[in-house]
C-alpha cells in the first residue's frame, strides 16, 4: 500500500586517515619550516655576535698596543698573543693606517694589504670582505687618535678573522636543524595516521559485528565502544531490535491469518464435495472478513514506522467530498468541507483519508440532504474533524454498540459494518479519540475524531 522508498545511496569517497595525515603534514611542514628558519636565523646571529665579540677584544688589544713613530709610521708595541697573527696568510690579520699612507700590518698579512677602511666614523664598524687569498673575512675597523711626540695622530685600526669557521658552524647547525625538524615532522604525521587508525578501530569492530548480525552469526551487537561511538552502536542495536520485532510481528501475523483460514477451507472442501451451496457462501464470507481484518491489521502495523508523518485534513476531506459526491450523485446529497484549511495533523495521510472516508461515507449513507465536515482546533495540541449529517442520528446509548467491531446499527443499509470500528482503531493508534453525538446544526449524527496536530502557526503538544 505504501510507496516503495528509494534505496540508500552509499559511496565511499576519500579516506579519513589519508585526509587527516595530509592535513597534519601540511601543518607540520609550514609550522616546523617557519620555526626552523627562525631558530637557524637566531643561531646565526648568535654565532656572528660571538665572533664580533672576540674581534672587538682583539681590536682593543691592537688599539692598546699601537704607537706612532714619525719616521716609520704606526707601530705595534707589543705583539698579540694569538700566534695566528704571525702565521702568513692565516686569515687572522691586523692593519693600522696612519697619515701620509703609512701602514703597519701583522706578519700574517705578509706583503698584502687589507682593503682600505670605510670613511672615518664614530665607533666600531663591522664588515665582511675578501682577504689576500680571496678568503672571506670578518673585519672590525675603528678610528683612533693617539698622542705622539708630534701631537695628535689619527689612525685607523682594522682587525680581521676568517669567516670560514663561522660559516662552517652555521652550515653544520642548519643541516642538523633540518634533519631534526624533518624527523620530528615525519614522526608527527605518522603519529596522527596511527592515531586515526587506532581511533577508528571501534568503528571497524562495529562494522564487523554488524556483518555478523546480518549474516546471522550473532544475535546482538555487544561491544564496549568509546563514548563517541556507543550511542551509534546503541541506535544500531535498537534498529536491529525493531527490525526483528517487525519481522516477528509479520511472521506472527501471517501465521495467524493462515491458521484462521484453515478452518473455513476445511469446511469449504467438505461443503463443495457435498454441494452445499449455503455453507460455501457462509465460509466464503468468513474468509472475506478474515482477509479484510488482516489487511487492516497489516496497515496498522505499518504505522509504527511512519513516525513524523503529517497531513492537512482539510484537503483530504475536500478530495473525499468530491469523490463521494460522484458516488452519491443520484441521491442529491451536498457535501461541504469548512474550517481551518491550514490545519495539520500528525498522522499518515492514507490513514486520515481512511478514517474520514469511513465517517463521510456513513454520513452520506444516513444523511438526507447534506453532510458537513468541519476542521477546527480542539485545544491541547489537538485538531478536531467533525463529520455531521442530517439523518436520524444515534439513539441514546447506541454509540457503544456502533463502535463494536462488525456491528451494524441499520442492517438495511449497505456496507460492511466495519467502518466505525476501523476509525476507532486507527484514531487510537495515533493517540487520538473518536466521539459520537448528535449534531446541533444538522440534527443527525455528529462523529468527531481528535488527532494530535495544530492549526496554522500553532505548535504540536500532542503525545509523542
Amino acid at each position, binding site marked *: 500500500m505504501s510507496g516503495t522508498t528509494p534505496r540508500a545511496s552509499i559511496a565511499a569517497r576519500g579516506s579519513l586517515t589519508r585526509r587527516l595525515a595530509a592535513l597534519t603534514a601540511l601543518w607540520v611542514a609550514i609550522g616546523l619550516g617557519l620555526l626552523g628558519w627562525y631558530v637557524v636565523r637566531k643561531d646565526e646571529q648568535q654565532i656572528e655576535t660571538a665572533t664580533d665579540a672576540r674581534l672587538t677584544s682583539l681590536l682593543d688589544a691592537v688599539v692598546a698596543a699601537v704607537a706612532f713613530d714619525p719616521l716609520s709610521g704606526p707601530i705595534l708595541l707589543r705583539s698579540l698573543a694569538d700566534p695566528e697573527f704571525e702565521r702568513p696568510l692565516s686569515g687572522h690579520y691586523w692593519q693600522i693606517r696612519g697619515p701620509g699612507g703609512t701602514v703597519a700590518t701583522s706578519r700574517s698579512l705578509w706583503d698584502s694589504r687589507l682593503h682600505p677602511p670605510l670613511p672615518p666614523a664614530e665607533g666600531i664598524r663591522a664588515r665582511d670582505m675578501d682577504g689576500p687569498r680571496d678568503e672571506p673575512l670578518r673585519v672590525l675597523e675603528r678610528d683612533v687618535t693617539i698622542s705622539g711626540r708630534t701631537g695628535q695622530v689619527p689612525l685607523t685600526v682594522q682587525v680581521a678573522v676568517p669567516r670560514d669557521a663561522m660559516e662552517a658552524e652555521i652550515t653544520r647547525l642548519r643541516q642538523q636543524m633540518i634533519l631534526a625538524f624533518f624527523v620530528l615532522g615525519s614522526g608527527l604525521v605518522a603519529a596522527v595516521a596511527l592515531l586515526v587508525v587506532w581511533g577508528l578501530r571501534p568503528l571497524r569492530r562495529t562494522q564487523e559485528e554488524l556483518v555478523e548480525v546480518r549474516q546471522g552469526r550473532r544475535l546482538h551487537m555487544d561491544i564496549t565502544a568509546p563514548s563517541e561511538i556507543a550511542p551509534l552502536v546503541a541506535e544500531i542495536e535498537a534498529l536491529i531490535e525493531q527490525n526483528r520485532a517487525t519481522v516477528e510481528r509479520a511472521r506472527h501475523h501471517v501465521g495467524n491469518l493462515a491458521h484462521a483460514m484453515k478452518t473455513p477451507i476445511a469446511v469449504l472442501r467438505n461443503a463443495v464435495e457435498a454441494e452445499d451451496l449455503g455453507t460455501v457462501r457462509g465460509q466464503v464470507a468468513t474468509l472475506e472478513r478474515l482477509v479484510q481484518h488482516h489487511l487492516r491489521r497489516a496497515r496498522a502495523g505499518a504505522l509504527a514506522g511512519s513516525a513524523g508523518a503529517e497531513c492537512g485534513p482539510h484537503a483530504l476531506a475536500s478530495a473525499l467530498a*468530491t469523490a463521494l459526491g460522484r458516488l452519491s450523485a*443520484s441521491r442529491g446529497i451536498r457535501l461541504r468541507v469548512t474550517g481551518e484549511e491550514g490545519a495539520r495533523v500528525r498522522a499518515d495521510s492514507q490513514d486520515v483519508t481512511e478514517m474520514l472516508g469511513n465517517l463521510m461515507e456513513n454520513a452520506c449513507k444516513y444523511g438526507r440532504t447534506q453532510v458537513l465536515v468541519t476542521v477546527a482546533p480542539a485545544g491541547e495540541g489537538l485538531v478536531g474533524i467533525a463529520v455531521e449529517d442530517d439523518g436520524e442520528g444515534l439513539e441514546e446509548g447506541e454509540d457503544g454498540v456502533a463502535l463494536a467491531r462488525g456491528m451494524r446499527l441499520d442492517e438495511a443499509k449497505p456496507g460492511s459494518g466495519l467502518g466505525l470500528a476501523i476509525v476507532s482503531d486507527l484514531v487510537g493508534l495515533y493517540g487520538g479519540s473518536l466521539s459520537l453525538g448528535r449534531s446541533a446544526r444538522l440534527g443527525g449524527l455528529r462523529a468527531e475524531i481528535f488527532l494530535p496536530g495544530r492549526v496554522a502557526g500553532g505548535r504540536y503538544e500532542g503525545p509523542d
Partner: protein
Amino acid sequence: MRLLVVEDTAALAGQLRQGLSESGFAVDMALDGEEALHLGDTEPYDAVVLDLGLPRVDGLTVLRRWRAAGRAMPVLILTARDSWTEKVEGLNAGADDYLAKPFAMAELVARLNALIRRANGVSKPELVFGEVRLDTATRSVSRAGAHVRLTALEYGLFAYLALHAGRPVSKTELTEHLYSQDFDRDSNTLEVIVARLRRKLGEGLIETVRGQGYRLQPASA
C-alpha cells in the same frame, strides 16, 4: 446493454463474462490497458468495468485518457485495492463507481444497472409504460402486474428503448449496444426480437418509425 470489461486475471475475466452475459449484458473483454483504450475509443459502450492493475497501461491512465478524449460512458472500477485513498484517486480520475474485490456478482450487476440508468438521466429504478413496468434494479418486466419472462436479448432491447424513450433508435444503434464485438450481427434478428416483444408486451408499445428505427413513448409515472 453493451459492456466493456477490462480484467487481466483470466479466471475472473471468464467469470465476469459469464455472469454479466447471463444478466443480459453484451460483454466485450479487454485483457490489458492498451486493448481497453482502443476498444473504449472505438466502440459505443453503455458502461465499463475497469480493473486498475493492468498490463501495458494501468487502469487509472486508461480512465484519464478516455475522459480527456471526451469519452463519457459510466466507468465502474473493480479492484482489490479498497483503501479510501485509492477510491478517491479512482473516483476523482473520472470513475462513477468503485467496487472492491471480493464482490458478489449481484452487486456488480445492480451497480452497473444503476450507473447506466443514471447516465441516461433516469433517476428512479422503475420505468412505467402504461401497464408495462420495467424494473432496472431487478431486471424484470411485468405487464398488468404479471411477470413477463424475457430472454436476455429481449430484455436488453426493451431496456435500451426504455432508457432512450421518446426518440427513435436506429437498428444500427441497437445492434451496437446489444451485441458484443465478436457476435455475428444480423439486423433481421432485431425484427424477430421486436416482434416477440410486441407479442409479449402488447402490440402498440414499440412503434416502428419508418426509415429511423424503433421508438418507445416516454414513461409516465
